[in-house]
């Protein structure tokens, strides 16, 4: 102790001391509020096999991991974006067994064996998906953050329309074929928010590939 200079305190020690003081100051409140250590639930890991873009990935995950976080954090597939993380914005849209869903609002462990398609599975820089080309041609984005979700959603939406699914704005519920007017496209894409408000060009991009094999 006497050998040490009283000034040889590095930044880390200062931070630790600061934290310790902070904890001390809060001690009375914490003893009331914090449950005993044995009652605090411990993370639970499980093993799951995810089929993503035709490739199998065996993963050991905390059960709390959303499909979105598994894609981004475990697999490094960052094409799928995290916007609100509460199913309100659609930036995280992926296709599961051919249908579009919000990957933030589903658990990775629930998708063992499902066929998952992300933006990385739709096209490559050399061979763009028709919708990717259309978004470029029609200037269907500004900042681009929502774009992967918009494109995955549009792929799912066009399949739903091809399957004859009606929408809120369909005048005739029983019509065998869907007429994809601009109003229909807007309604069917309402789960994808674009804060740059590129909506008119997004609709135009989607309309341009209608009938093309998307």
């Amino acid at each position: 102790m006497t050998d040490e200079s009283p000034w040889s305190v590095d930044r880390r020690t200062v931070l630790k001391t600061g934290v310790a003081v902070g904890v001390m100051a809060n001690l009375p409140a914490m003893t009331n509020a914090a449950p005993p250590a044995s009652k605090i639930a411990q993370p639970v890991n499980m093993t799951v096999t995810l089929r993503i873009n035709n490739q199998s990935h065996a993963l050991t995950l905390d059960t709390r991991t959303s499909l979105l976080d598994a894609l981004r954090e475990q697999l490094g597939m960052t094409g799928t974006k995290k916007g609100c993380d509460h199913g309100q914005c659609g930036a995280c849209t992926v296709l599961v067994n051919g249908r579009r869903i919000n990957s933030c609002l589903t658990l990775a462990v629930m998708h063992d064996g499902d066929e998952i398609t992300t933006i990385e599975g739709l096209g490559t820089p050399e061979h763009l998906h028709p919708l990717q080309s259309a978004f470029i041609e029609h200037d269907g984005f500004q900042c681009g953050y929502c774009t992967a979700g918009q494109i995955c959603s549009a792929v799912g939406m066009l399949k739903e329309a091809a399957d004859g699914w009606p929408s809120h704005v369909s005048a005739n519920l029983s019509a065998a074929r869907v007429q994809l007017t601009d109003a229909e496209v807007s309604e069917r894409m309402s789960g994808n928010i674009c804060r740059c408000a590129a909506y008119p060009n997004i609709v135009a991009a989607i309309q341009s590939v209608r009938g093309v094999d998307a």
Partner: protein
Amino acid sequence: MIPFTYERATDANDAAKAASQPGARFIAGGTNLLDLMKLEIEKPAHLVDITRLPLREVEITNGAVRIGSQVPNSELAAHPLIRERYPVLSRALLAGASGQLRNKASTGGNLLQRTRCYYFYDTSKACNKREPGSGCAALQGFNRIHAILGASDSCIAVHPSDMAVALTALEASIETVLPDGSTRTLPIGELYRLPGDTPHIETNLRPGELITAVVLPAPPAGNQTYRKVRDRASYAFALVSVAAIVRVEAGRVRDARIALGGVAHKPWRALDAENALRGKPASMESFVNAAQAALAPAKSHGGNDFKIPLAQRVLTRTLADVAGTEAAA
């Protein structure tokens, strides 16, 4: 999110048994439960995944249609039987949520979704539904979206489902399996509870009771419609919605079924309006009178004062439309 253990159920009865344990919950689409778990409003210790149970069929037997509880909202809305025979249900489903959410949300889960009251979601605020006995911040708060019918001093939250409003007008029933292996059937009117002084108890389901199907009786004669009024044109919860089935013969209303959404703690069957309408001429005067009867017991809380006239007008206009009556200017 609090850590939890997870199991995938392969049998409905086993699932009910597993979910009857303290801290256990079913998970199906997860679109509401996971949202609430992220905010630590829901804190299950164990999840029972029921999505792979064989409950995904829509089948017709003796004129009734039985919908498996795991049928996604999107597939149900698009099902030919529902589009042709129960258009009020297709319309209600299509008016709710987004394409992505409808693909995930299940029939059973839609019924059991929780309120979107801002104070229920905000864990720093008092909420008797989230924390029994803590009070209701909405009563004196920003209560624009809140209940005008059947509320209490404990809770003025509304049920958010569109689908359940249509099912109420259709007099659907709910089939369940209990942890002891027995089954029962509840009319939808007996599924939900008004808040009273126990707003945290929202349904009459017992611990572990699993919804296996929703059964629609043969559609009543008459025209069906669903109208929803909301703050934006798509992807928003109802301020007021109306499911109506009206049968007009020789210029008179022979029968009517009316349910309101966005106005109460449960989908609100407007029996007073139905009684006021039955046997009356299919005229604007009759529809106005029926709408007044439906809203006669309404009580507002400041921010939602507008909902009473809004509900009256939306109901009047919807009845005129479904009865095929020219609305007065």
